[in-house]
């Protein structure tokens, strides 16, 4: 064996490892080059700020999905959780029937987050403790949330909120919107917690091998449930940012986020099979998704066609995950 040969192959292994873990970043770069060549507007700060702003809501919900995926489950209620919690917040702040102005916006935000977390808890209890398939439990909660959102708003959009909540979506720190910084902060925190704490370790263990986790003394039900709880919290957090950024709320808020979140997670390297992937990857996966649609919009691709394409991207992402897992086995 020549030494250069082994060193060369080590380099290749490293590169292939890198490309597997940071496939999303590579994809973003390639796509950016293409869109830069086709649209003069693409590579402007205005446009990138826009991409990051849009990412800040999707990616926070996607982080929740990534955590649920890590436990080996799936949350279909995330998008409607965003809708319901933001509608709830809007009603509490605006409705005359509830005698306005008694609700401090900060209190409202806390209530929204509490409600989101509660929805997550319902998903968790139904899945982990009652033993329902996650698909059924979260599909049920998805409908409950959507129904409640329609019920409390009468399906009418609500706009203009007190200035104090503008911080989450419309205020800037230097050139950077606060919500983007919050998103980055949340991701750094989640990445740290998921790799460096008992909570994170056990979430990975439960997803990586439920039985092995149980026979190592890990409370499988508790950590499965916690995954959903955290996801519920993050979905409502995404709802807060969305409400603040748009300064208006409608029942269509967050629609389809659960699928965007799956695309973002898988492209970011998180596996549908559970226990594998980095949470931070989901951030890049989400940026990829938003960039793709941003670029297509600039190329004037029909929005309906974009929807169809999104479906294909979801299928492609899942296909990729299946392929990755099969190669391993």
């Amino acid at each position, binding site marked *: 064996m020549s030494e250069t040969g082994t060193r060369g192959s080590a380099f290749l292994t490293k590169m292939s490892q890198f490309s597997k873990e940071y496939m999303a970043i590579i994809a973003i770069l390639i796509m950016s080059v293409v869109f830069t060549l086709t649209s003069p507007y693409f590579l402007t700060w205005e446009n990138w700020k826009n991409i990051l702003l849009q990412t800040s809501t999707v990616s926070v919900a996607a982080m929740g999905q990534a955590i649920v995926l890590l436990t080996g489950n799936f949350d279909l209620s995330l998008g409607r959780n965003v809708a319901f919690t933001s509608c709830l917040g809007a009603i509490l702040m605006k409705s005359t029937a509830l005698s306005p102005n008694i609700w401090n916006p900060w209190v409202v935000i806390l209530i929204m987050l509490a409600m989101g977390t509660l929805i997550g808890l319902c998903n968790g209890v139904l899945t982990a403790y009652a033993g329902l398939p996650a698909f059924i439990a979260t599909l049920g909660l998805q409908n409950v949330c959507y129904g409640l959102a329609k019920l409390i708003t009468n399906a009418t959009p609500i706009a203009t909120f007190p200035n104090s909540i503008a911080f989450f979506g419309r205020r800037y720190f230097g050139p950077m919107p606060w919500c983007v910084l919050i998103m980055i902060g949340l991701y750094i925190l989640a990445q740290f917690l998921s*790799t*460096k*704490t*008992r909570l994170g*370790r*056990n979430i*990975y*263990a439960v997803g*990586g*091998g439920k*039985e*092995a*986790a*149980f*026979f*190592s*003394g*890990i*409370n499988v039900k508790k950590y499965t449930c916690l995954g959903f709880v955290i996801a519920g919290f993050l979905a409502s957090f995404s709802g807060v940012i969305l409400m603040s950024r748009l300064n208006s709320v409608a029942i269509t808020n967050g629609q389809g986020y659960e699928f965007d979140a799956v695309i973002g997670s898988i492209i970011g390297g998180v596996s549908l099979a559970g*226990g*594998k992937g980095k949470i931070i990857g989901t951030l890049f996966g989400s940026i990829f998704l938003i960039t793709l649609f941003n670029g297509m919009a600039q190329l004037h691709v029909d929005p309906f066609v974009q929807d169809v394409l999104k479906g294909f991207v979801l299928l492609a992402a899942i296909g990729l995950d299946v392929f990755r897992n099969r190669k*391993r086995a």
Partner: protein
Amino acid sequence: MDKDYILEIEGLSKGFPGVQALDKVSFNVERGTIHALVGENGAGKSTLIKILAGIYRADAGNVTLNGQAIAFKTPHEARVAGISVVHQEMKLAEPLSVAENLFVGGILTGRGNLVDWKEMRRRAKEIIDNLGVEIDVRAPVDSLTVAKKQIVEVCRAVNMNCKLMIMDEPSATLTDRELEILFGIAKKLRGEGITIIYISHRLDEIFNLADNVTVLRDGLMVNTVPVRDVTKRRLISMMVGRELGLEYPKEAAQIGDVLLEVKNLVRNGVLHDISFNVRQGEVLGISGLVGSGRTELARAILGIDKIDSGEVYVRGKKKLYRSFREAIKDGLGLIPEDRKTQGLVQIFSVKRNICMVSLDKIIKKGIVSARLEQQYGEEYAKKLRIMTPSMNTQVQYLSGGNQQKVVVTKWMMQNSEILFMDEPTRGIDVGAKTEIYHLINDLVKQGKTVIMISSEMPEILGMCDRIVILHEGKMVGELMRDEATQERIMEKCV
């Protein structure tokens, strides 16, 4: 004299990234014989079978079946050519009936293309009766015992007109009595002209059953010899490439106080009035047929399953564990039966698996220390001689023996005082087995207690100080080491 070979293998090679699984292996199998294939884990047996069964394709070499060169591209082609594999892990459609399973892939149809149930059941019954066993062809497969499932697999192969049957470690999950039935079946099939390639880790079986034996080691062919020309010791040394000492290296430890005592333990319908105790430094064996309540007893004591009545005392104090976690915190541990799914997270690294039970030890101020994790991993890998390229290698890439050592390590790191081991040496090779036995010696010498559940009678006899025998959830006997024999245990088991 020219012999009649059904299968001729010549220069067969197969490589995977990083391993040469088979390296120019050549041997022949005589028609109508039982041909044993032995070797340690990683010797290349599985790869060889997978090539014969059309799952892998060889890199080089020739395989000739009935004088015709073969190179199957799919398992289906192999089956059509008359090669069937009876797998270690059963590949049956569990909710379907026995009859349906026999005809999977070729459901019989009668008039109007409808399923001809009557004929299917009749033929299924004929095949099963012919083997001299009793199985209801209408019963769903998941209602059968492991042993009967295995027989159903054999029957399916027979039904597919199999000429060469490969039995891949069928004995790993069977008790001695079930084995005898299986041996009877194998011999009967041989009598009917079916050739059998039999793979096993238990060498005793090979002497009972096989005509010839081929030994593989590290992907190389060591030798093919008639079984009557070798001794067990010689076979072992061929497999491991060195002479092994005593097969069961039992060393007596200082026996101390009673660590665990069970009084009148009942779990309705599963365990009936079980009482025993174990002392410090003792290895207690739990023997019995599969389904006699051995694993269930461990689960009940460890707080995994509920106890309906009775008491458990640990170090003289009455305990009722509400969860397995509580039992672990109190110094109990379990090496579970199924290494692959219960013992390890396959996609996790060696060090991550090692630290799974005692995560506390690597958490400082709430934060997992990567340095400590690496340190513990390396320390135990060295102590237990775990062969792994690195601490970051996923355990799924380790051999069975090394995987099992990782499982043992989890509990050594936790420093568990009372350790249950459920089939601790199932499916691992001779060398690794001996290493596990040495680990058991080390544990009891440190004043710990090992409770060993095993279907391998010689292992129980060879390693335990005392043996408790279960039958249908009842305790039917207790034997000291010096009074226990295979016969005495067997007569209580049945």
